[in-house]
């Protein structure tokens, strides 16, 4: 019995190692390619390790793209989208969960409908709105679609629904008005959900490519993902440089994940979604 459980364990570990290797390999490939020359990266048969660890492509990508600007734009994009998602979704989620008002059901149904539609449907009307406001090629344009989050409203509504009614009633009796009940009593109880929403919004905003490319054409207004996309050529691509740029782009997210991985995993587990 002991022997079979030991060999079972070995098999499980082998499978896990194999799975991990499959997941990690693309990142390792990206890492090693960033130190290769272009011929090395295109050689057949392919080589994993570079012949030498050269930093040329890192220097080249830093001079070709205004990385500091790209980082800054991305930080602003993530920051404002997260703030807007949390603030507006919290208030809307609270209203849908705890307040009684006419048309509540209809409004929430509209939000659910928006969630079920692909986001690409809204690209043209959103672009037209930003263009009419004369705000193309601005940071506001980047943030614009993220001002409201249907998913955030739905997600936080569920959280507020789980808070017992008596807590709100106790706050009301203690002397809180509606606003005080929300921000002094209810909102602090949604910490875990807000952290999860923050992480989801930040990750999505960080990787958002289509909208930044559509709404901005000035490279100094690009985010990291849009900036990296400019490294792809029409006919050829300098893959080592692209890999170097990608590594530089993902570094902040990796660091943040390492710091907040518990909340990230809890957030995914809580929603059952990616």
């Amino acid at each position: 019995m002991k022997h079979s459980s030991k060999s079972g364990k070995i098999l499980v570990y082998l499978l896990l190692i194999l799975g991990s290797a499959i997941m990690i390999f693309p990142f390792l490939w990206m890492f090693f390619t960033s130190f290769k020359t272009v011929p090395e990266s295109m050689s057949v048969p392919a080589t994993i390790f570079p012949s030498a660890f050269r930093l040329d492509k890192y220097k080249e990508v830093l001079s070709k793209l205004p990385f500091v600007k790209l980082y800054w734009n991305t930080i602003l994009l993530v920051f404002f989208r997260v703030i807007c998602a949390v603030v507006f979704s919290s208030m809307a989620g609270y209203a849908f969960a705890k307040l009684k008002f006419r048309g509540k059901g209809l409004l929430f149904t509209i939000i659910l409908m928006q969630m079920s539609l692909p986001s690409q449907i809204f690209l043209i009307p959103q672009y037209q709105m930003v263009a009419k406001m004369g705000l193309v090629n601005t940071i506001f344009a980047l943030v614009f679609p993220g001002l409201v989050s249907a998913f955030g409203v739905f997600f936080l509504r569920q959280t507020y629904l789980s808070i017992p009614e008596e807590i709100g009633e106790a706050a009301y009796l203690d002397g809180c008005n509606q606003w005080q009940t929300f921000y002094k009593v209810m909102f602090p109880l949604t910490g875990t959900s807000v952290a999860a929403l923050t992480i989801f919004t930040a990750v999505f905003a960080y990787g958002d490519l289509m909208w930044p490319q559509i709404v901005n054409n000035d490279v100094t207004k690009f985010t990291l993902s849009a900036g990296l996309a400019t490294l792809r050529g029409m006919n050829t691509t300098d893959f080592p440089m692209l890999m170097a740029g990608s590594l530089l782009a993902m570094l902040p997210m990796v660091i943040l994940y390492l710091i907040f991985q518990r909340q990230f995993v809890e957030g995914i587990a809580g929603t059952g979604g990616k």
Partner: protein
Amino acid sequence: MAALNLKGITKIYPHSADQKKARKKGAPEKKTNLQVTAEGVIAVQKFDLDIKDKEFIVLVGPSGCGKSTTLRMVAGLEEISGGELYIDGQLVNDVEPKNRDIAMVFQSYALYPHMTVYDNMAFPLKLRKMPKDEIDRRVKEAAEILDITQYLSRKPKALSGGQRQRVAIGRAIVREPKVLLMDEPLSNLDAKLRNQMRAEIIKLRQKINTTFIYVTHDQTEAMTLGDRIVIMKDGFIQQIGTPQEVFDHPANIFVAGFIGMPQMNMFNAKLLSEGGKYFVSVGGCKTELSADKQAALSSHKVPAQDITLGVRPSHMVLAKAPGNTLTATVDVAEMMGSEIHFHANADGRDVVVIVPTMDTNGERVDSFHAGDKLNLTFSGSACHVFSKDGRNLEF
């Protein structure tokens, strides 16, 4: 500390849009004991009660009787559909809860999970922009009264049920409210803790000078805590009185059955009027009613009729021999130490008889077993005479 006057207080829950449509189509309605009108479901019907300053009033009744709804209307958490509510002579129907100078203890405690015990108790005072040292004084004083000083820095999740309940009471009393409302505060506690906390509430009442309105479904809590109890059923007040009054003189069969443990025995009997005196006759037992009951029935000119006769289990007496007794057959005899509880069948009904194991002469009562016959009798003062529609004929 304040007097309250509830005048014709009514609560109607309006029909929803779907229910209105269903009613128009004549669809069968959901079964409920409450009155349903075109306006809606009447949860509380014309509730009239005057509560004296510093009185401890208990609203008691089965689930769905309207007691919590009444309490919530006093608190301002439910809109009053009809009638008037006065606190200290001021009409407060449209006054915000925070301006009514009332505090409430919830069944589920409703403590703020993200705040410490200190912050929970200080919260209502901070909202009123009270000076910090005054807040500190009040919180520590209340914590001292409730013996929770050592828990002030803890969060609610680190407390037991009884401790949380005390914190909830503490959060209410720091405000020194005119009226303290308690909505089944002991329901979530186990039996032992409930007994303990009941005693704590009695002690608390002695320490703080305020008017209490307490809601419970437990008749033991009602009897032990209340100066007066209000028994409710299906939205209506059944009776208002001191615990002893409602125990000795229940207004109807519902009150008679609800108050007292075990429940009052009910028999199909006859009220007889012979030679200007009233008698009750059940099975082979005929008993003359006591003088006070004679007077009460005479004053209302109550005719002889079929009645429901109520006698409490502890008021049934074991006769030594048959003859003018009610014969019962023992189903189960429970030895309780100083008492025996007989579950028997008499005159086609299940009855409970409680007798001491030792009689007044110090002699042990005979032991009885299943199938044995009991000869039961009762005094004229221990009878409760109800009409067939459930009213106490003495009222």
